[in-house]
């Protein structure tokens, strides 16, 4: 079975969706403004004759004409980071502010983490966690290359994340007891990466999805618990399956004191609302405030993103 056929009922223009999934993705870089302004990075690319097109929704996200961002001086200096276009979305939804305390629960290899650090002006405290020790070296390498210095890297199971390394439940003045914001860019079935990895669906199975949903729920619940009342939690995946998206939100809305909040992507970036019904299940109506990103809308990978507020 072709897994993507499941979503024919969600899309009136399913053929365009299927066609987009078969096209390779362009190489995209994000300008790292911790090290260079967008103008300066663009001038340096121009001077080297590297051709690119600015995305119509983000001046610092550039589509390169040729593949591979590696071999240019601006890249060497850490002014650019290779990052899939759609993956710039969750950090914007999180909207972290300079000086805040922010948690990235599933941080490696660090594209979104370093974007969050950039938005925080490299101030405050950013905790980048990943349960995979092997992937942590990529996270550290990328963050340091991009000049990030406000990042603390931890290696915990995000479902039981402990703030103990930061002095929780002590009397120390520097202790941290809750986050202002948290990003849960959850492990998922990765259906939306099919344009980047043509074999992404080779191991697809409903059993696998059922297994991973438990992890997603556990991490999102922990993020809500670890975030202060009034704080923001963003949930994102790179997959289409409602089981991993709206159903996870629906579960957390019932189990934790939180609400989904409206959030609009930048102008020029087109999304579809979350679905409230799937395979006989009905979800909380507020999941419509979440954003589904289909590859044919903006010529990107597939994605899902929702913004929640933690209640008192």
């Amino acid at each position, binding site marked *: 079975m072709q897994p993507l056929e499941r979503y024919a009922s969600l899309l009136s223009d399913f053929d365009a969706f299927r066609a987009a999934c078969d096209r390779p993705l362009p190489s995209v870089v994000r300008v790292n403004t911790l090290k260079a*302004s967008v103008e*300066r990075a663009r001038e340096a690319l121009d001077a080297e004759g590297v051709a690119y097109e600015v995305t119509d929704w983000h001046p610092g996200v550039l589509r390169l004409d040729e593949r591979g961002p590696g071999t240019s001086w601006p890249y060497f*200096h850490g002014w650019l980071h290779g990052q899939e276009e759609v993956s710039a979305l969750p950090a914007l939804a999180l909207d972290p502010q300079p000086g805040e305390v922010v948690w990235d629960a599933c941080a490696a290899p660090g594209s979104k983490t370093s974007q969050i650090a950039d938005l925080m002006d490299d101030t405050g405290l950013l905790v980048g966690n990943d349960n995979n020790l092997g992937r942590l070296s990529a996270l550290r390498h990328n963050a340091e290359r991009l000049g990030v210095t*406000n990042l603390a890297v931890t290696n915990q199971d995000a479902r039981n994340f402990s703030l103990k390394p930061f002095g929780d439940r002590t009397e120390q003045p520097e202790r941290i007891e809750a986050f202002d914001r948290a990003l849960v860019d959850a492990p998922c079935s990765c259906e939306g990466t099919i344009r980047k990895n043509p074999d992404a669906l080779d191991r697809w199975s409903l059993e696998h999805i059922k297994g991973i949903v438990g992890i997603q729920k556990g991490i999102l619940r922990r993020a809500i618990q670890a975030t202060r009342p009034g704080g923001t939690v963003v949930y994102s995946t790179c997959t289409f399956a409602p089981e991993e998206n709206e159903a996870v939100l629906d579960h957390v809305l019932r189990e934790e004191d939180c609400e989904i909040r409206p959030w609009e992507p930048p102008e020029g970036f087109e999304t579809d609302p979350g679905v409230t019904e799937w395979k006989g299940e009905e979800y909380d109506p507020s999941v419509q405030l979440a954003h589904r990103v289909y590859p044919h809308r903006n010529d990107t990978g597939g994605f899902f993103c929702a913004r929640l507020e933690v209640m008192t």
Partner: protein
Amino acid sequence: MSGDGTGENASSTPENDGQQFDRLPATADERVVPGRPSRQEVVSWWAERYEISPETWDGHTFWEKGNGKLWAFAADTVSPTDVEGLGMRILRARQEHWKPSTNAVQRFGREATKNVVVLDVDEATRFAKGEDQELPRWDGDWGYVIAAHEIAGDSEASETPRATGEAGDVEPIGVGLYLHGELRSTVPKGRREDLS
């Protein structure tokens, strides 16, 4: 595993525990762990070696993890802490000649006005590739220097204050080791690029 609290060590002299991050003492007078540099010594080292002003570091705390590996962190947290990373590794100390990291020089080296070797296009390309090269024209100090070059893009017009360079407007590439008329590139393998 680190236990609760500070741990009861029977030995009288505290030692550096390479598995955790410890905040550097502010001054030598406050030093408890032998051999651990103080914050003041680190700030002075950057100022003396590269004329990077001490205020550059006002927003950062300094930490040691491993033997002499020093980190700059843009926040403060409890000390010690057993996290996997804390800010950026900036310096290797506890050896005769302290060695700055490529990433530190790229991030903080724009402010340097001393021991900055400005390379031309071909020299910069060789340096980024990790190659050593003869450079007899250098008449500054021997030892670890900041290799830099001019790069297109007007940093003065930058909208980002941090991206403006005061000192001759060159961009640091990395750390060179200058000895006997030769500039050795210390760009780590994972950062080397063929930009020719």
